[in-house]
């Protein structure tokens, strides 16, 4: 019995060194994270959703700021179609005070966020997903109680100027899913601020 315990501890330890994170096609785990209104939020709470636009973002990062209005617009456009935005701040506020829970509450109120803005205090969800920077988007499609990763990457192809964006990756992905098609470009790369991991 003791041997099994040691063995499973060793396996767990080994697993923790393997690079984590989802690829397109993987099943994503649900989470239970605290929203800016103090309530806990899980994907399972959304009975009628067809999927989610899970967006790792934060207050301080210039790229996250540049994309903030576009994240708000994504929720305005797709929540009613079954793909709401769930924003998650994974940063350690000890490293960046601007990303503290209180400052998240303030930001969500100032900008009238119409979607949850959750704090990933343990950073476990960002690690499970494999989020590397902010903003970093995961489009998930819901199948019963399972959530399949259908798109990972950038929101569009122009962080500086929304009106100059030619390819709107997240919109294209959600539109494809809504049309019952496979996502035309399932993964893109973007420059962003590194997630501030706890040391």
């Amino acid at each position, binding site marked *: 019995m003791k041997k099994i315990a040691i063995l499973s501890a060793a396996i767990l330890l080994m697993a923790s060194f393997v690079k984590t994170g989802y690829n397109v096609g993987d099943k994503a785990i649900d989470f239970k994270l605290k929203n800016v209104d103090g309530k806990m939020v899980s994907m399972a709470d959304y009975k009628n959703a067809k999927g989610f636009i899970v967006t790792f973002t934060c207050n301080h990062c210039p790229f996250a700021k540049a994309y903030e209005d576009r994240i708000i617009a994504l929720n305005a456009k797709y929540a009613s179609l079954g793909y709401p935005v769930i924003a998650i701040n994974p940063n350690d506020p000890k490293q960046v005070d601007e990303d503290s829970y209180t400052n998240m509450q303030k930001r969500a109120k100032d900008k009238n966020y119409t979607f949850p803005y959750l704090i990933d205090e343990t950073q476990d969800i960002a690690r499970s997903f494999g989020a590397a920077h902010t903003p970093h988007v995961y489009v998930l499609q819901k199948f019963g109680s399972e959530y399949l990763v259908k798109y990972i*990457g950038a929101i569009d192809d122009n962080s500086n100027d929304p009106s100059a964006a030619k390819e709107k990756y997240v919109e294209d992905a959600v539109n494809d899913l809504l049309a019952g098609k496979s996502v035309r470009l399932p993964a893109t790369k973007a420059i962003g601020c590194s997630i501030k991991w706890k040391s």
Partner: protein
Amino acid sequence: MKIIRNTGLLFFICMQTSFLWHRVNAVNISDLQKEIIKNNDTLYVVNFWATWCAPCVKELPSFKAVYTRYASNKVKMIYVSLNSMQELAKVEKFAEDNSLKPEVLLLNENNPNSWINKIDSGWSGTIPATGIYRNGKKIYFQEGDFTEDKLNNLIQAKLNKP
């Protein structure tokens, strides 16, 4: 006369400023590749950074220190700013204030998805990130920041092993 003298003075000041001003060239991805993929035995240490990126700014002194140490060797630091074109003046001022040498470029590309893989297919796009090139080949790539010791040891190792 006074006007002429003042104009002359202004001209003189402008000349001085442009002489001291740290020039930052804006380049596209193929220009950048031409700068770093060269058929010679110089080590091109290419650091991707931005003025808004706190961990990038924090590691710059390590790069400067290592560059000073190996200045007489075949080592060239190229600081590639990922700031937007609108921030070119800001990058020039930063480069000047922080004496970034010998070369600072601004990568003028809008769509990271089109060029990140050309630098390294394993790169997520998070900065800082650093690549080392020699004889037209990429011989090292790292996503994440460097300590001075780590960078120093790496450069030393690469110089020892041509």
